[in-house]
């Protein structure tokens, strides 16, 4: 088994130290950073994704693997200048005003990070002003809003209106989620997408940022 296979397998097992080790070894063997990334780390995370979807991995495993991946990535980053060194893009996430439900959004964050996005979590009970501000500041590709309450979900519209008023609605793709939200509602508030769970949220973000 070559180093890249070992790296990939170590990642799949969530072994942080081994991932570091094999990443370094691959570099030492003069494998190009981009190849290590693609055939080692990303190939590994792809398997992790599949295992998760098939119920072989739970969230803790996924988070651990993501952590291992980031450990490897840290070694590669300096060498990955240009497009491939960049994160897949920035995503800002927050739970809307009046709503303290946190976990769903954090899981979305974790899965996006696992997929290589840089995610900025602006917390719970976030008002429109703060959403606007963070879009201005972080210039994310995607803004995600979470709401778990029937009485806060409408606030998503308030936020989107605020972005509109500030003239920056079009600078960002907006996605929404949380138990009471669905596709129909997402459309009705003018969001660009909805996902029922974290792994579909990743697919959604990929789709939206590809376009």
């Amino acid at each position, binding site marked *: 088994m070559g180093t890249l296979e070992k790296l990939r397998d170590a990642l799949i097992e969530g072994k942080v130290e081994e991932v570091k080790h094999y990443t370094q070894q691959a570099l030492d063997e003069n494998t190009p950073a981009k190849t290590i990334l693609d055939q080692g780390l990303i190939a590994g995370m792809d398997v992790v994704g599949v295992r998760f979807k098939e119920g072989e991995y*739970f*969230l803790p495993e996924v*988070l651990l693997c993501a952590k291992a991946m980031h450990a490897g990535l840290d070694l590669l980053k300096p060498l990955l200048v240009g497009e491939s060194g960049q994160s897949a893009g920035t995503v800002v996430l927050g739970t809307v005003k*009046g*709503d*303290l439900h946190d*976990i769903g959004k954090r899981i979305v964050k974790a899965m996006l990070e696992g997929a290589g996005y840089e995610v900025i979590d602006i917390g719970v009970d976030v008002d429109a002003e703060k959403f606007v501000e963070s879009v201005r500041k972080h210039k994310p590709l995607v803004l995600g809003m979470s709401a778990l309450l*029937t*009485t806060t979900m409408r606030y998503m519209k308030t936020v989107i209106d605020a972005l509109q008023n500030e003239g920056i609605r079009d600078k960002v793709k907006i996605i929404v989620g949380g138990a009471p939200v669905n596709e129909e509602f997402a459309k009705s508030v003018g969001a660009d997408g909805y996902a029922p769970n974290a792994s579909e949220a990743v697919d959604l973000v990929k789709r939206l940022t590809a376009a």
Partner: protein
Amino acid sequence: MEEMLYSSAHEMIFGFAKKPVTVANGLTFGKGKVVPEVNFTLPPMDLAHENVPEIRERFKDIAHRIMERCVELQQEEVVIEFEHLFDMTERPDFGAQLTKDLKEVIEKYRQSHGTKAALRVTVADIRDRTRPPRMRSGKEIETMLRSFELCADAGADILSIESTGGKEISDNALMIGDVEGLLFALGVLGPRDMDFLWREIVSIARRYDVVPGGDTACGFANTAMQLAHQGLLPKVLAAVVRLMSAPRSLAAVEVGAVGPLKDCGYENPVIKAITGVPISMEGKTSACAHSSPLGNIAAAVCDLWSNESVQDVKLLSGNTPEVFTEMLIYDCRLMNTAIEEGRAEILRDLMVDSDRFLDPQALILDPKVMYEAARVIVNAGEDKFKQAVAVSRYAHGVVKEAEATNKIRLRGVEAKWLEKIGKILEHLPEEEEEFYASVKARYEGHFIPEEYGLN
């Protein structure tokens, strides 16, 4: 707690609690009848000040519809739960006004039809707003206690809360499957906060002569159940967390809560076994709020039977609150008929057997398991940490045993997790102090020790 009020699992049965509770209008819980508890919430709409009149109208209308359905179906006893949304606690006058509105409708039906209804008011734990949260200092706790007072004054019959002490640790612990973190949340922080908070609530309840109901580990164990339902966590972990949460929820009763405990506390039977308080439970009829593997078994030893929560929307026959009222009434009728005809034990056992071996979370809810868990807790002494560790180990052992004897089938990954959890539980320090010392650094910054009387 040194002894238990029940001397066998068999003795535990729906409709009967060793220490029945009576509210002002004479409605009694745990004295031979299961009473439906109807929960509802608002449909998509916002809670802004300008919507208050509309919300009040809707609340009154919902209560009216629930009571009307009771009358139509000749159901003479019912509990309506008013679970605050954030703003209703945050703005205590708002919550109290709605309490008053609901009580008026209930009172009207008492006069016109003799229906005995009680109002449970569940205040929201708004301390969870900031992270790390301030549990004892600051304006959140003040506001919450004021909300309890105003609601008690406005007509609440039963006070409840789903408190969140320790959740700042458990949220993350659940995500990464950190058993020690969960123990820290549920065995160390939670009980301390419960002790503090429930003394306050009980004192308010006494002052206003209303019933201090109880708490639930919803934010911990039900979150775990949800995560397991979504395939994000193993079910075996959710099963262990369920029992791990019992000592924490028991703490409310230890300082004066008398039940009926809150519907979503699936750990309630343990507390009933120890203290004899009546409990509300939810199962199949709460599928509106969340799917669960506990549909029938949850009813086995309940005194109230609830639908957890349904948003008020129109269905073909009427709106959801009255539709769920009807379903609860029929569930209760069946249980009450079984009681009258001396068949309660049979029905209980059928409910248990129908779910028991299909999911480790159901397995744990078997009254026999719940009863033994109670015994384990009592035997562990007063120390909450020791209680939590002991009962977690017990939970683990129950699942393990059921797997070993092929009573329950676990997928490979679930079995691996069961191993893993077992090992962690095995190698824990036995003393709280030692445990705290071993994890303190890990959770530093995520909680404020002083807010739990720790340092």
